[in-house]
């Protein structure tokens, strides 16, 4: 392996996990955009998504790689089930836990989110057991050698899947009536109400979309690493949150960029510097960046108080 090949390989490694971070970061950023809430439980939604996809596979009794239309159909089915389940979960969380607190101090909702995170983690542990569960490898382990750099089908699928979703979300937010309502709510909910925009419903839909994206992230995560555990949401959620802030929280292209940048930074940091300083590396870059550009890569402004 030449140094260049090694570098490109590390880049491909980083972009894969980065794409997953980006999908989760979208949920953090969208929710933050409309109600300025750091939804700490979002990482757990992602984990629940992985378990829902796994449940579908277990119900169908599938544990071997598949090919062709069957594979694509099954992936879509898993994704649909996970998205529906997590969307419902996101809606329920918003309705039961966050909406009643909308007039309270912002930190109250943050603590509720933390309580929710404990609750979901332990609920999944009780339902599925504490042991890591094997997530069947559905996609055949085919690999391409591009100039000495190995890329698997799975990585391609992750890149393609997350790219489609990200473009879709961007289009949804920028081009549809719903998206306009979301942007308007983010700017001034009071005025939105006066104009007859159903602010509550817009917020609920935002939670649903963000959770559904995390669900796909969870499914891809399961397919990529082939193991899922009830505490997976914690570290990955924290990273995705970091990615959202890195890109500029509240900003949708920022979340995508932040996810990819964080994934690549981690990959290169662990690959060239030291694996045991990997997490420090990500945070040092984050802190450094925020100090020079206090609103993240693409962010503009943010509410200035806790």
């Amino acid at each position, binding site marked *: *392996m030449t140094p260049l090949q*090694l570098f490109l*390989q*590390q880049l491909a*490694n*980083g972009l894969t*996990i980065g794409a997953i971070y980006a999908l989760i970061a979208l949920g953090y950023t969208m929710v933050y955009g409309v109600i300025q809430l750091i939804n700490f439980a979002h990482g757990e939604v992602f984990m629940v998504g992985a378990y829902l996809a796994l449940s579908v596979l277990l119900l169908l009794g599938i544990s071997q790689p598949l090919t062709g239309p069957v594979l694509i159909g099954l992936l879509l089915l898993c994704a649909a089930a996970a998205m529906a389940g997590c969307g419902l979960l996101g809606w329920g969380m918003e309705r039961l836990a966050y909406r009643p607190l909308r007039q309270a101090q912002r930190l109250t909702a943050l603590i509720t989110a933390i309580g929710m995170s404990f609750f979901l983690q*332990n609920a999944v*542990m009780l339902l599925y*057991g*504490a*042991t*890591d569960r*094997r997530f069947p*490898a559905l996609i055949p*382990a085919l690999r391409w050698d591009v100039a000495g750099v*190995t890329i*698997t089908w799975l990585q391609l699928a992750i890149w393609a899947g997350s790219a489609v979703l990200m473009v879709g979300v961007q289009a949804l937010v920028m081009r549809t009536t719903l998206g306009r309502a979301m942007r308007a709510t983010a700017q001034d909910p009071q005025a939105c109400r006066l104009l007859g925009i159903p602010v509550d419903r817009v917020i609920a839909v935002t939670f649903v979309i963000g959770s559904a994206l995390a669900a796909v992230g969870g499914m891809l*995560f399961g397919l990529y*690493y*082939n*193991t899922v*555990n009830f*505490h*997976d949401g*914690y*570290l*990955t959620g924290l990273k995705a949150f970091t990615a959202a802030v890195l890109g500029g929280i509240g900003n949708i292209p920022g979340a995508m960029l932040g996810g990819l940048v964080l994934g690549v930074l*981690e*990959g*290169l*940091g*662990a*690959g*060239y510097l*030291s*694996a*045991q300083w*990997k*997490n420090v590396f990500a945070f040092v870059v984050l802190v450094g960046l925020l100090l020079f550009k206090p609103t993240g890569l693409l962010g503009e402004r943010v509410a200035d108080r806790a």
Partner: protein
Amino acid sequence: MTRQARLVLGLLVGLAGGCGKPAQPVVKIGFVAPLTGDQAPHGEDMLNGARLAVDHAIARGDVIPGQRLELVALDDQRSPTQAVAAAKKLAADPDVVAVVGHLNSSCTMPASAIYHQARMLQITPVSSNPQISRQGFDTFYRTCATDDLQGPAAARFVAQELGAARVFIIDDMTTYGRGLANEFEQALRGLQGTVLGHEGITQGDKDFTPLLTKVKAMRPDAVYFAGMFPEGALLIKQRADVGLGGRFMGGDGLFDPVLIELATPQASEGVYLTTIGSDVHRMPTAEAFVKAYEARFGPLGAYSAYAYEATSLAIWAIRQAGKKDRAAVLAAMKALTDYPGLFGLQNFDERGDSRIRDIGLFTVQGGAFVFVKSIGE
């Protein structure tokens, strides 16, 4: 406080205090391991072993005439702070005369001071860090081999039998993993092996491809990993994914059938690992235990046998003492010779470490662990 909040609090207090006390006098054995959190599966395996030992003992009649034997299981969440809290809880309960625990060396270490001060017998089934018994606590016993045996045994095997000269070492940055990895590294250097690098990974992390890609470029003959099976499985699988050749060897933290399931049988074929004791399935002395365990709880966990052994030893000491008295139980334990345990005749040295110093060598073949041989002292 609003009425609702008071209601909630009252309910909780009621729930916590609701476990009423039985009339018959009890004698208790404490058990501490992580029962929630990421290492809960190991803790559960151990708890099953301990439960089986208690039930076997009860079936043989009262341990102390007229007193009911009870197992008090506490959760330390593998946190040293929680471990100390649990230890103090046990120390404060006059009915508890002995403790089986903990799982993690980082927890056993501070907790052992509490048990020592309470003059209470502590038997750890599996905390293998050698530092613990070097603190000089006479209340401390251990039923497994220590990492200053396991690390060098693995190093001898890697260097002399696998003929691997260039080795990369990975650990999980815990008291156990770092301790074992350091023992391995030191022994390997003593055998003129080349250590290409020694790096830590984070427990709970999933993506090790950057590290493994880097290691691949160094072309090692072998990779040694000291840590637990969830991370081990990912390392083994991702090692195959990035096309890293050479051998892969690990410590007893990997010895769990789930490892092979998670890493896939193909990727884990030919992986070697050591265990802190011999293969319990091959011990004629353990046959009855294995049968009873698997009939009740399913496949044997990596640490179930040690927990059964430790609990049985504690019960034996209580039976010998014949009364609910910590000093008497400890004295009985000190007088132990040739206890017929699962791994043969059990004796302890002056530090409280088991004299059975077997290190088992296993390899993965066709999706199952296969015992190769004993490579202990």
